[in-house]
């Protein structure tokens, strides 16, 4: 790990591309630049999900909703 240094001399990375983590990152008051509140306020760019991935995620989501409904229905039915 390298010694901490002043924030003013640290270049800011582009918000368009997420910075890849690196070992031995320079520190600003014992924090890595990406740990700073100002850096964490910058959103990471959105990933592109393929059609199959989207479909699989929706299938899983629908499955979870249906089974959740079944569990809740059974629970409520058992109450009465």
């Amino acid at each position, binding site marked *: 790990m390298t010694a901490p240094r002043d*924030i003013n001399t640290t270049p800011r990375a582009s918000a368009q591309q997420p910075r890849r*983590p690196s070992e031995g990152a320079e520190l600003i008051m014992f*924090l890595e630049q*990406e740990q700073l509140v100002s850096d964490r306020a910058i959103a990471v*760019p*959105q990933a592109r999900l393929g059609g199959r991935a989207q479909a699989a995620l929706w299938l899983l989501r629908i499955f979870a909703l249906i*089974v959740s409904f079944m569990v809740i229905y059974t629970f409520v039915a058992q109450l009465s």
Partner: protein
Amino acid sequence: MAPLETAGHSLEPVAAGVGLTHEDAVRSLDRSRVFHARRHGRHWSLLWLLAGPGILAMLGENDGPSMISYAATGATYGTGFFVPFIAVTFAMAIICQEMCMRVGAVTHRGYGELVLQRYGKVWGWFSAGDLAFTNLVTLIAEFVAIRVGMAYFHLGAPVAAALGVVLVLFTMSGGRYWRWERIVLGMALFNGLFLISAILVKPHWGSVAHALTFTPFPGGSFNTLLLLLASTIGATVTPWMIFFQQGASADKGMTSADIKHGRWDTVAGGVLAAIFGIGALLAGAALLTHNGANIPDHGLAGAGFPAAIRAVSGGPAATVFALGLIEAGAVAVLTISASTAYAAGECIGVSRSFNNSPRHALIFYLANAGVALIAAAIILIPGAPLLSIALNANVLAAVLLPVALVFVVMLANDRDLMGKWVNKRSTNVIAITIIAFVAIFAAAYGIDSFLGTVHIIGAG
């Protein structure tokens, strides 16, 4: 609030001078200790400083409903099959939680905000919605557990509700993640009461050792078995743990340099939680051989385990078990409220850190206290089916878990975010197997019980 100092120098003016926020300065103070411990090769000190999120996630999940689930399982089936099954589910939890810790340490961001930003608002809000729903149900069950424990000491629901809410308000005051973490960590170690309770019921240790060799699948009602299997899985890995450990790792200020210690923290938490969970199962199993599995006779709508244990194994075991339930519920109220607060802050895009003051992180603190208050109010309703709430809370968590885990795996494989810290192929194979395993058991219970309820198949 205590002044922020490191090596005799105040951090606040320096932080202000270089344009850092108060939250940065507080986190920087904690990180200065890690920096110095690492530089001077103080390994035990480093472990002490970096322990926390993993142990809290695991022992937090050894919560009231989980311990009631384990005791119910022991009372219904004894030690066979379920002792190794609990060990296996905690091994699954370690795999899942390690990924969360790693993503949090490398990206310095919570699960909710990463899903929202990386995969879009729809998936981000679905995740937050799942969490808000399961957290509320689980929190109600935590207050139920506190109530069950307190009822043993003849204390009513209002005392249980007040205790949980006061603890949340007390621990989140102070404006320091470190303070919050150490208080909750200290409380969480009392989860070991379940092990003491197990010793006090004097189990047959030979049978316990034999159970570890995987005894056959238990018989009896198929639906009850599915409920207990799904609920045991839901008692080990849940959506809130994912939000919590990733958010807490980021809030603590962990970095990729801390991953090795984060893994130790997670494994230690998993091993302790498995041992204490098996303790609850053994305490409950004492009821099986004494025809004491008829828990409803002991009141509290089927959740009166301490009174049932007293009838079978005597006062000390029951007292320790009741105290354990209060501890398990209380710690989980704190960690689950915190996970709700992290999720709210991350998805709304406002400050989400115990290192910030309530004035600067209003939504974070409001969500933390608000969800606990709502759950506390619900347990004051008389005649609630406590055991059923506790078991179904775990099942619901298991049902919604596969979706959350898929995003954890996607994040942990995102090379743009994780760089060289992406999952290994073997981790992916295990993680996908876990997702399938959880989905199958949760769906089996959901479908079987639903079809039985609507009389398409015979119940049981």
